[in-house]
């Protein structure tokens, strides 16, 4: 460990900007970005499944509110949604005196809410499309077996819809990673926030932002390969036999 440390210090010795200290900022930023993106994706996914089913409902009073929600959240910039939730919470009368303020004064939670609602809207539409694309034969077969609607949803429609949604969902995950960069606008020290800090401190835009761009690029490729692997595993039955 000590050897590693010494090697590291030597490596950074004639570098004014990327000292162990600044790299620490980037590391913290990486942690915040990953936490923010991961949590919002997981919660958004959990919200999106029932919403996607509701979106395809035949009852208008169930279908239309969900449609309205996805329309608004997909039609407006995430930045606006973030501002609305961030300032909406901060400027509520008297909230700064309540116990909730301990949690809410950190911009992390408003950002998490905004990102979650945003990704849930996109994911709902992705799943809705995938559910709609279920082939009639599968549904007819399930009905012929006497399955109830719930059972059919659980055993037949959702599993095949998830698989079909996988490529589009992979894009959504990458989109979310990139969109999370705007968290830095509301004072969160994510990766981009760290880059902005380093830029401001050393006035070195190329070093600060190119370095963070490289990190994002690596993360993007990691997600890309993860989804490619998942697709290969889960969509193997759709491949042509001699492919």
């Amino acid at each position, binding site marked *: 460990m000590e050897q590693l440390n010494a090697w590291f210090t030597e490596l950074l010795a004639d570098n004014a900007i990327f000292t162990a200290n600044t790299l620490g900022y980037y590391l913290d930023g990486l942690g915040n970005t990953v936490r923010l993106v991961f949590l919002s994706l997981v919660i958004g996914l959990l919200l999106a499944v029932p919403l996607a089913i509701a979106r395809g409902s035949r009852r208008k009073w169930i279908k239309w509110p969900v449609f309205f929600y996805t*329309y*608004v959240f997909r*039609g*407006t*910039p*995430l*930045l*606006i949604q973030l*501002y*609305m939730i961030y*300032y*909406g919470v901060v*400027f509520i009368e008297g909230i700064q005196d309540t116990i909730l303020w301990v949690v809410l004064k950190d911009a992390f939670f408003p950002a998490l809410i905004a990102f979650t609602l945003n990704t849930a809207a996109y994911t709902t539409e992705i799943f809705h499309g995938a559910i709609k694309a279920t082939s009639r034969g599968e549904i007819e077969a399930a009905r012929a077996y006497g399955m109830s609607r719930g059972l059919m949803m659980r055993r037949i429609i959702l599993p095949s819809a998830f698989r079909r949604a996988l490529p589009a969902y992979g894009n959504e995950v990458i989109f979310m*990673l*990139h*969109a*999370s*960069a*705007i968290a*830095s*606008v509301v004072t969160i020290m994510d990766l*981009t926030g760290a*880059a*902005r800090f380093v*830029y401001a401190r050393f006035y070195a*835009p*190329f070093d600060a*932002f*190119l370095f*963070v*761009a490289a990190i*994002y*690029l690596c993360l*993007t*490729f990691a997600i890309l390969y993860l989804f490619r692997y998942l697709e290969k595993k889960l969509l193997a039955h759709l491949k042509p036999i001699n492919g």
Partner: protein
Amino acid sequence: MIDLQGYGPRLLEGALVTVEVAVLSLLLALVLGLLTASAKLSRHRLLHRIATLYTTLIRGVPDLVLMLLLFFGGQMGVNAITDWLYYQFDVDIFININEFVAGVVTIGFIFGAYMGETFRGAFLAVDSGQLEAGRAYGMSSRLIFRRIQFPQMMRHALPGLGNNWMVLLKTTALVSVIGLSDMVRIAAEATKATHEPFLFMIPVAVIYLLIASVSEWGVARLQKRYNVGFGEADEWNN
């Protein structure tokens, strides 16, 4: 009516800035997209590599990071080049990278990569028999491009272009971060001054939805025009 506390006219000015940024970067993106698609389809290996590198890099890095890089680093880079020109060739030019230029160039560059993919797919979708027929008629390659390839390519490209435009429109909100007074920035300033976030953010959101609805209508009309002879466009409208 809603009382916008005197910020109404400024919000409208901001909306104009948003539209300006969006339209200008769309034009840049279309040009870059066509160039990228041609480079990717050309047999020239180097051009192909450069285009692939461009689309991969752009699509792997967040828009905001690219914008900050160009805004903060762009002036330094441009100054270095103009200084060099001055010392080497005694050419004295000054190029100012303000937030408007940085915003338009970044968004144009980002969406040029996406447009390139759309155009590439659309060019490949044009039946090669059509081009052969054009050649058989003795048309020059430019005439073939203008009369046969481009109109038929647009039919396939329009749905993708429409989607890209919608995403581009929302991306313009980022220019508020580098200090351009688009409607998002003005709404944010008004919010900070009056502590009324919803009063200003909701109208801005509504304007975005309005622009999106109008462009959806426009894309549908264009779609109809480019689909002449192919029946109804219902396969794209789902």
